[in-house]
């Protein structure tokens, strides 16, 4: 193949993409930076390009906004709970399913359907699941606690409401971890494991010193992608609790949504978005340094 692309190919390979990305994403990005430094809301009755410049007041306001800080830390807490949970659950099931039995192929197919569902559907399912007279209270807990179970209001208690969101996320995305780890573990050469067995290594030892190190790159990819995905959490919170009770389950995505839609505080929402973007970029940069470049 020639080193330099022919003209026709070059145009096709770059122009449409550039038009789409510039037109739909880059221009809004520029608008966001502009908005963060002005004071504008649709309620002010002027066009956004005529808004008064207020320098960094939006950012100063964000740093002393306790609701913003707690939404941020709540999202961080959420990520640090769901990702390890999904990873461990997924790893256990993926490891167990390494043994051969009849119908395994169908079982694997059956177990992964949650990740095909729209998150809004999963949110609806668990919203109904945790209603006061829903099946969790009325069937599962009823057997354990009796009549008292009917008095548990999952969405009215700050901690329990967060738990329901965590359960929904773990339910939908454990199959993702499972699927990645399962395909990784299945690809570990059989003869390595057999050789270790012949040498008398225990199952536990084989798992820790042979299987796990071999799929380490895969584990890193899975953890990074899932963490970034979990940081976005919106659908479950919006549908199941609406951020409530009060603001006790508000995630950072929901807070930005509320600022922009409910409070129409557009320029402040833009400043908050930029801060969130910066934080995530710095964290991922540090993570990439520690996990990938340092070794």
């Amino acid at each position, binding site marked *: 193949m020639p080193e330099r692309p022919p003209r026709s190919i070059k145009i096709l390979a770059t122009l449409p993409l550039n038009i*789409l990305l510039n037109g739909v994403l880059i221009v809004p990005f520029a608008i966001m930076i502009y908005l963060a430094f002005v004071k504008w809301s649709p309620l002010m009755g002027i066009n956004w390009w005529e808004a008064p410049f207020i320098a960094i007041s939006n950012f100063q306001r964000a740093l002393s906004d306790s609701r913003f800080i707690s939404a941020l830390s709540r999202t961080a807490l959420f990520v640090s709970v769901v990702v390890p949970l999904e990873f461990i659950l997924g790893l256990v099931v993926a490891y167990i399913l390494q043994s051969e039995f009849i119908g395994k192929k169908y079982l694997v*197919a059956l177990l992964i359907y949650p990740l095909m569902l729209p998150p809004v559907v999963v949110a609806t399912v668990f919203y109904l699941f945790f209603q006061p007279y829903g099946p969790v209270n009325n*069937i599962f807990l009823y057997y354990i606690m009796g009549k008292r179970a009917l008095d548990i209001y999952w969405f009215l208690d700050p901690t329990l409401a967060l738990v329901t969101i965590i359960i929904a996320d773990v339910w939908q995305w454990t199959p993702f971890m499972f699927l990645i780890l399962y395909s990784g573990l299945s690809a570990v050469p059989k003869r390595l494991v057999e050789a270790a067995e012949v040498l008398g290594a225990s199952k536990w030892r084989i798992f820790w010193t042979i299987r796990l190190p071999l799929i380490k790159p895969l584990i890193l990819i*899975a953890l990074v992608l899932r963490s970034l995905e979990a940081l976005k959490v919106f659908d479950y919170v919006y549908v199941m609790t609406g951020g409530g009770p009060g603001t006790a389950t508000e995630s950072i995505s929901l807070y930005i949504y509320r600022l922009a839609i409910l409070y129409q505080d557009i320029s402040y929402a833009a400043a908050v978005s930029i801060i969130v973007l910066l934080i995530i970029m710095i964290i991922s940069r540090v993570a990439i340094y520690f996990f990938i470049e340092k070794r």
Partner: protein
Amino acid sequence: MKLSILPKIIIACVIVVFILWTLTPVLWMISLSFKPYGEWRTPHLLPQKPTIDNYRMLFTPQALQIFIAYTAIIEPVTGPLTRSLIVSITATIIAVIIGFFTAYGASRYNTPGPFVLFFTLLTRMLPPATFLTPIMVYFTTLGLFDNIAGLILLYSATTITYAIWIMKGFIDAIPVEWEEAALMEGAKPLEVLFKVVLPIARPGLVVSGLFIFLMAWTELLFALVLTNVNAVTLPVQISKYVTAVGALWGTQAAIALLGSIIPVIIGYMIQRHLVTGFTFGLVRA
């Protein structure tokens, strides 16, 4: 792996628990969607008097008017359903076509360069909520608010990452020699692209297309922000039934199930490629 009897029992238990954990919520939803009003809050697992009223309510929602004041919500589900189909299919076609050209350039000639490719990944990895404010302002200024054209543009721009990266994997696997042979025979570069590469890369087109459809079909946040009445998509309609209508359990279950049929079918069609899709081709199953 050979196992003695006790670990086998433990393993069987773990698998059974995991199967129950995975299946119960949706099985219960299916059961709920066929229960009449009086049975929603009872602990029966199966509907005692099965009915399809919940589904009928979705298509002719006059009965809902007693409960709610919003007119947007009681639109029959056929509207959002068709809109979701139009938006998802059109966005998929745009993303796949542009993604195919880009992936070919990226695979063979190092266009459009690592920075742009990285940028496409970035748009997919950062929280979409951070782009919500300017997108809303920009689209409203352009008159794309509450307009399915806006959603189509936005979805094709945000899902093109998958088209590029999945298809790049497929095109990388095609031997360059075939193209060189065609070039030697005197074929033009464009002919090589359309007559040699395109037919072989067709599975890649299909897989990335179905995956993008899945992503566009399930998107809620931007659909929520950019629509009001005329462009409401199915995820928005589902969320409205929960957040604005209130205690209509059976109907909520019915619309949620209705919205999952197509994605689950598509998900199983590309089951072998789901890992590849979700990891942008970084992991091959």
